[in-house]
């Protein structure tokens, strides 16, 4: 079952195949729980979010369209939305967003099947993030990963709303440009 593609697992999930459901959960549970825990901070709430994310994925598996994105992207988007809804009050950040995404650490080795394609893989994205000015990196991690609104980014960073929006916009555009540039030089 581990050699089966992500798309095939989703198809199995949609068809009610219990082996496929089990393999699907095993394959993605660390990513889903990790993202949920990162956003909601609380262990118990993270588990609730992660469980609900898998149930939602099962319920909507028959509507998954691989032409619109990867399985892991779809599943993590579900997880992120649930986690953001679960967080009613933002706690002060107890960590640096750049540290959170591991920009200060070696990337480590990953198995080939873990180098997930979303148009970009995580290591290339991490490298592109590391090229950003620190304040832009923090802004895009807060908004793109943790789901902060521009206003919340402004409050967390003690900057005006307009500055927060400018940093988020600039960061995403530069990230995209870096990734596209890398693709064309490969």
């Amino acid at each position, binding site marked *: 079952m581990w050699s089966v593609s992500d798309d095939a697992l989703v198809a199995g999930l949609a068809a009610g195949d*219990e082996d496929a*459901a*089990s393999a699907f*959960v095993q394959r993605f*549970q*660390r*990513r889903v*729980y*990790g*993202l949920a*825990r*990162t*956003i909601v901070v609380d262990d118990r709430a993270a*588990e609730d979010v*992660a*469980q609900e994310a*898998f*149930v*939602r994925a*099962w*319920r*909507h598996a028959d*509507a998954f369209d691989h032409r619109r*994105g990867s399985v*892991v*992207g779809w599943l*993590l*988007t579900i*997880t*992120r*939305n*649930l986690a953001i*809804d*679960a967080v009613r009050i933002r706690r002060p950040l107890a960590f640096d967003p750049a540290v*959170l*995404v*591991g920009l200060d650490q070696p990337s480590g080795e990953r198995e080939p099947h873990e180098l*997930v394609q*979303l*148009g*970009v893989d*995580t290591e290339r*994205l991490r490298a592109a*993030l590391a090229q950003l000015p620190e304040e832009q990196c923090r802004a*895009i*991690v807060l*908004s*793109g*990963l943790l789901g902060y*609104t*521009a206003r919340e980014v402004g409050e967390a960073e003690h900057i005006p709303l307009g500055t927060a*929006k400018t940093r*988020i*916009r600039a*960061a*995403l*555009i530069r990230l*995209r440009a870096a*990734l*596209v540039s890398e693709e064309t030089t490969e």
Partner: protein
Amino acid sequence: MSIFSCREVRELAPELALGLLGGTERAEAIMHVDECARCQALVLELTETADALPLLAPELEPPAGFEHRVLSQIHSRRRWNRRRFVPTMAAVAAVAAVAILSVTAVHVVEANNSSSTVPRSAAARAPVAVEMRDTVAGVSAGWAYVTGGHSVAVTVDYGVSSGRYHVQLTRADGGAQSLGTMTVNGNRGSWTGRSARTITRGSTLALVDAAGRAVCHGTVTTGA
């Protein structure tokens, strides 16, 4: 026609891709993107990058027994859905049977040129299910049920942000009215109420946010 120009949408594109825009800005930007291939391409590129950002979260081992608990939930909900499916199908069959009887009765009455009672009322009391779909993503957000042409129940459980929404009825003739206010919390919410005007086929029910944007909607496609 959107009020935004290409220049304005290009400026807002990163926030649109990250899902940070709300209300009128989001609705107008999406309207523009739907009609402009160049802006659409830009937003799609940025969305691809934005969608990759959650991959940066550290992977963590969930608590022991997590997989078992997830599979148990799926299993129990699957069984529940099957149980629910049977009465739903029975209700559909009942509606169909009553409708057939009604049509038959109408034909008989018309053939006899009589004005005696036509058994329409039973069909009118059977609930009509309307799937509420997310206006942007098109995925199912929940269901509305219209009973007797006036009673309305709306329930959502997916993809609707927490907040207060107007339950808006737009009749087939274009007239629109708010039937009440529904609160959504953690993607879930339900509301029941009545419409003074009869809800007929072709009417649309929608949840409308404070900015006037319909976040999900469904159209009555069978007789209500």
